[in-house]
């Protein structure tokens, strides 16, 4: 368990260095778009790790000073497919954002939507030696969690303590300072494929940047687009991206489950492209301009010029009714929602007190999508938009930016993840000198 989080601990140190410097970049590596936001943290706002939440729900201590979006290249299903192309896209986004912010950034917090996330519930239990529960005890109980076999080529992306239990009392969010004999913890461990994270790290390194944190985009979208009572009572955030659709389930303000379906908006586009025999950019344009999910009688009469540049007059002058277009779009979306339904059922979403489902992400902008989602997922569906944060331009406030905004919040107020606590001493393997120094420091 100790060796497991070396990578994350190193990233945490870099994140603190970035906070110290006051400037950090947010990079959303998506399948269809690459977004880069540059944040400036106010000087003297604290490290933001263990402070109480300040004014404006804790968002007032940072400001977005640079935003850039570019078409993503070389990314498939939220994973890096062609390193060179992705690197170019990252460079484009970062350079434009730097130019807008007029500041150089060195640290990047990135999120990725693919990499086949898998959730595990972990439990750990320790006996308490002293009177109150100290930070050290929490570190001990987190380290005492029994790790399941996560697979050879996988590594943790998040490890969030979800619930603490002290003796017979459960449902504690922060047991520090309380009196008890036995401390137990439930931890949510999210693992992803190592190769994807390594590719992303390498790609960012090739852009002369340092990776200071990594998050699942479903988690980030959930942070930004679920309102507080939804996070408290239980809700699922569905982040419909280009190449994959992520689910994150929140309960009592903690993420308890994450999953992803490797289907997204790009598949709808490719369906249109195949169905209407048009190139992908034209299909994308038709989808965004005329797309819908519920056909009415009016749509039979609305003819859409498809256009084309082949030189064949007959081919270039085709037109299609909107109903036909909806007929192409709708089955794919239904398929996505059915897949999501399966995943939610597998996660036990039906047992949560709240059944709210929030749709966000770029593909959720198809009109009438909430109605269609309601049929598959239950009536309690709404469309979500990200929270407003300071300095974000109007163009970047749409649902397509919910994971970017969520990453901003994640950067400003990182969750107390497992690696945010010190490693308990008895778990150290080799560093006896450091242990001795530490002992001296604490006892003298």
């Amino acid at each position, binding site marked *: 368990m100790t060796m497991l989080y070396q990578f994350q601990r190193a990233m945490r140190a870099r994140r603190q260095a970035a906070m110290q410097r006051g400037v950090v970049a947010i990079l959303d590596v998506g399948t269809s778009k690459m977004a880069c936001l540059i944040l400036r943290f106010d000087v003297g706002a604290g490290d933001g790790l263990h402070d109480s939440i300040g004014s404006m729900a804790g968002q007032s201590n940072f400001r977005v000073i640079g935003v850039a979006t*570019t078409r993503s290249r070389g990314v498939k299903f939220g994973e890096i497919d062609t390193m060179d192309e992705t690197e*170019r*896209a990252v*460079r*484009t986004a*970062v*350079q434009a954002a*730097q*130019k807008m912010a*007029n*500041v*150089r950034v060195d640290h990047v917090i990135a999120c990725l939507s693919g990499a086949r996330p898998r959730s595990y519930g972990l439990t750990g239990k320790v006996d308490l030696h002293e009177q109150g529960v100290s930070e050290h005890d929490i570190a001990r109980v987190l380290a005492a969690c029994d790790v399941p076999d996560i697979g050879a080529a996988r590594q943790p992306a998040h490890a969030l303590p979800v619930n603490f239990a002290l003796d017979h009392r459960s449902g504690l969010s922060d047991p520090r300072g309380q009196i008890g004999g036995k401390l137990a913890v439930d931890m949510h461990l999210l693992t992803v494929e190592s190769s994807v994270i390594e590719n992303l790290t390498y790609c960012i390194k090739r*852009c*002369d940047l340092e990776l200071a944190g990594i998050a699942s985009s479903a988690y980030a979208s959930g942070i930004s687009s679920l309102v507080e009572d939804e996070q408290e009572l239980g809700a699922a955030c569905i982040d419909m991206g280009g190449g994959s659709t992520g689910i994150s389930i929140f309960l009592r303000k903690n993420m308890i489950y994450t999953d992803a379906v490797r289907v997204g908006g790009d598949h709808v586009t490719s369906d249109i492209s195949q169905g209407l025999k048009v190139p992908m950019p034209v299909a994308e344009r038709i989808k965004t301009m005329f797309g819908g999910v519920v056909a009415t009688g009016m749509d039979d009469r609305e003819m859409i010029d498809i256009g084309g*540049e*082949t*030189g064949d007059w007959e081919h270039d002058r085709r037109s299609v009714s909107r109903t036909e277009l909806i007929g192409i779009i709708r089955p794919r979306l239904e398929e996505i929602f059915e897949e999501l339904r399966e995943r939610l059922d597998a996660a036990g979403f039906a047992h949560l007190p709240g059944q709210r489902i929030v749709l966000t992400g770029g593909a959720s902008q198809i009109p009438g999508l909430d109605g269609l989602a309601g049929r598959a997922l239950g009536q309690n569906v709404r469309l979500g938009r990200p929270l407003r944060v300071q300095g974000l331009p109007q163009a970047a406030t749409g649902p397509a930016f919910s994971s970017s905004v969520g990453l901003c919040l994640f950067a400003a107020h990182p969750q107390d993840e497992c690696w945010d606590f010190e490693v308990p001493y008895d778990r150290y393997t080799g560093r006896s000198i450091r242990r001795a120094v530490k002992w001296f420091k604490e006892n003298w």
Partner: protein
Amino acid sequence: MQQVTPPKTDPAPSRTSYRFQRLWLTPLFRALLRTGIPAFGVMVLGAWYVADTDRVEQVKLRVSELRTSIEQRPEFMVNMMQIEDVSAEVAEDIREVTSLDFPISSFDLDLVHMRRLIEELDAVKRAKLVVRPGGVLDVAVVERMPVIVWRSREALELLDADGNRVGPLANRAGRADLALIVGEGADAVVPEALTILATAAPISDDLRGLVRVGERRWDLVLAGGRRVLLPEDNPVFALERVIALNSINDLLARDFLLIDMRDQKRPTVQLSTDAVEYLHKINAIDTDGDDAL
């Protein structure tokens, strides 16, 4: 027909331009580029220019030429020296000492030095030098006023109230209106001599001068070589006593050689030989009557 259009250029920045932009956004690099390189360039240019001695000489020459041309402008030229409140001899002395040949630029005049030279003249107490517009060097001089004549072992000199030398005197008759003091070190105590002389104003007809004795006290010399020996301390008081005696007893009309006032308690009068004999004669008459003769 499908047109053959050149492929759209890659919107991504090249790695070089990306790195250069990041470098350009580095504050330290920017500061270096904005201040360091221009400063370095100026220094290099300056060093290159100075490296050639001929060029430096030329610059120096041009600077000095420019300076002279400014100095020689008529606005800065001084054409004459005007000396005020001074006798002709002193004025002549001042001209000699300063030894200026007009016209001269006012930049070349060292007024402080000239003032020191002028004030070193015996006859000059204070001098004020001003270059007035119109090219006139105005010298305002306060002369020393001779108040007393001092006959030293070497020469006859005029002194002012503070005992400073004013000038030589050819003969005593030249300034018969001034009192005479004689003796080594008399010039150092001119103020005392002046007080004594002022006190002696009632007997000024008989007064011939003051003699400094042993550089510590004064002798008042009267007509006929008669002397009044004044004490070291408080000579004025002693002299006042003599004058008082004179006004009551007509003391100075008597036939005496000297009046010794050095001991305040016991003033002594030394009579002349004739007077003594005469006194003896009178005494004999008084006491012995005929027997004495």
